[in-house]
């Protein structure tokens, strides 16, 4: 259905990473729910975000868990094409729709659910995309410094645009090379929301005149939405991320960083992979399936295999 270009800039591929990858995949597979998918945290209900990451993380050996996850995603898609936050959630849909598109496409599922999801995604926009709220943010509500003409996607309908749902939606749209106008608008929104010191946080760089600090995961995910580091904001983001990863002790944030550095062919990736491996080895138990899955996806990408968040078709 599509090809993902391999990252061939890693000269040496340490074999122990493959062993770690297999261990992670086994652990993820072990926690699969009988009804398909994976819960978040201590839950017993399949969460869509968790399931998408786990589906992307599994290899060919975990055929049953993979198929159950695909079935779960197909079963939980709302009639309007969106995905909920978890199985049994209210049916209005949310940001996981873009993630569902990326995961199902990566799993080479049938295109029909993706077409429905695309329509929902294009119909949704941050609330500042409406003229009334645009006017409000431009005139009377200037506490948060942003350009309301540049909007992306919200976490949930009826709210404003935020960095991570916008970046994930952009990746989903760019992978299928559709909706150029929305891609441009969303890209402009991300460029408008950078933090003064570089990188991104949840959504705004300046609030009440004060600069806010970037977050590692938001910066890495935003960087994934840009194909190359030509934009100064992207270069500043990469530069900030390189520094931030040095002090990072979280597998979740390191995994996203490895994925971003892989896409941007940034040599910091190798150091980041080593830190990720070290954190995974030193922590006695990481029960969080999101973190295990993202770590597996990152290690797989670092090994030169497919990166599900890569934009190249």
């Amino acid at each position, binding site marked *: 259905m599509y090809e993902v270009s391999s990252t061939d800039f890693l000269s040496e591929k340490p074999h122990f990473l493959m062993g770690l990858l297999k261990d992670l995949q086994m652990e993820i597979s072990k926690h699969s729910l009988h009804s398909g998918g994976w*819960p978040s945290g201590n839950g*017993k209900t399949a969460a869509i975000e968790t399931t998408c990451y786990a589906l992307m993380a599994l290899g060919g050996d975990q055929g049953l868990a993979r198929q159950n996850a695909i079935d779960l995603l197909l079963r939980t898609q709302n009639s309007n094409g969106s995905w909920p936050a978890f199985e049994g959630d209210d049916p209005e849909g949310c940001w996981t729709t873009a993630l569902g598109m990326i995961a199902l496409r990566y799993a080479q599922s049938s295109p029909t659910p993706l077409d429905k999801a695309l329509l929902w995604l294009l119909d949704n926009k941050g609330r500042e995309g409406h003229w009334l709220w645009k006017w409000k943010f431009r005139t009377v509500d200037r506490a948060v410094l942003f350009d309301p003409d540049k909007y992306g996607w919200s976490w949930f309908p009826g709210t404003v645009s935020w960095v991570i749902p916008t970046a994930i939606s952009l990746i989903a749209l760019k992978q299928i090379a559709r909706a150029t106008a929305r891609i441009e608008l969303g890209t402009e929104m991300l460029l408008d929301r950078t933090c003064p010191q570089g990188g991104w946080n949840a959504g705004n760089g300046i609030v009440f005149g004060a600069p806010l600090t970037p977050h590692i995961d938001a910066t890495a995910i935003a960087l994934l939405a840009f194909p190359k580091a030509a934009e100064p904001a992207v270069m500043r983001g990469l530069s900030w991320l390189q520094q931030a990863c040095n002090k990072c002790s979280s597998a979740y944030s390191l995994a996203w960083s490895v994925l971003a550095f892989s896409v941007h062919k940034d040599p910091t990736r190798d150091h980041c992979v080593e830190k990720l491996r070290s954190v995974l080895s030193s922590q006695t138990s990481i029960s969080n399936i999101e973190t295990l899955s993202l770590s597996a996806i990152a290690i797989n990408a670092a090994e030169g295999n497919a990166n599900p968040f890569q934009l190249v078709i």
Partner: protein
Amino acid sequence: MTLRFQQQKYSRDFRPKHSRVSILNAEHYSDKLDELVYQGLRLFKLEVRGKSVLLKPNIVEYIPGRPVNTDPQLIGAAAEAFLRLGAASVTVAEGPGHHRDTVLLVHETGLADQLQHRNISFVDLNRDELVKTKLQANYSGLGHLWLPRTVLASEFIVSMPKVKTHHWTGVTLSMKNMFGIVPGSRYGWPKNVLHWAGIHESILDICATVRPNFVIADGIIVMEGDGPLNGTAKHLHTILLSDDPVAADSTLARLLGSEPSDIKHIQEGGRFIGNHQGVVL
């Protein structure tokens, strides 16, 4: 007062006959807080023996040098004190508003060390099992919220705010701290659905539905000015304990130099969640 507040929006009056407040003096964060908090709690003769206690601190963002979060030393001291009082279990639980990487935040703030040292469990409320819950007041118009099972299953909930001013709500104290039980996995990072439904209105609905049984407020070093992230530190040398979140927040607001009646959720909370005045122990 907006029109939204002029009609009765609650069906149940949670106010106790008498509310109690205790203000403890603490010069700084140290191991001495263990005994201070324990002795402070004993004044209230709380019935926590055999109960599951949930401590809900305020963990937002790690900014070195800024008093943004409930101090981990105080959280550890509170956990220890409840165990000494006979609690069956103590869990620390939080769902940070902007940060998706809760593990990173818990490590950066030093809370992870306290939890490990004292063998206390932590639950990320942003990623817990959720239960659709009817709200016990109707200020926000949301009707129901999906709330974490860990919170709903707890028998004794302690709100542990960092005492701060807040650019949207005036102050962020024990009632506003309960925003953190609302899961990001269902309402986003930040929980923007609540902002659009009205922050004061959402606070009232949440506190009517999951009313904190007790408050331990970190007022040793507080934040003034452009809170909750960019204000300046002020040494108040105070830990406030109370069995009533409205009495706690009214007292804390006064300590910050604000009039409780100017803060909508505190003023309105006095109608049904708690009392504006408490007996000082």
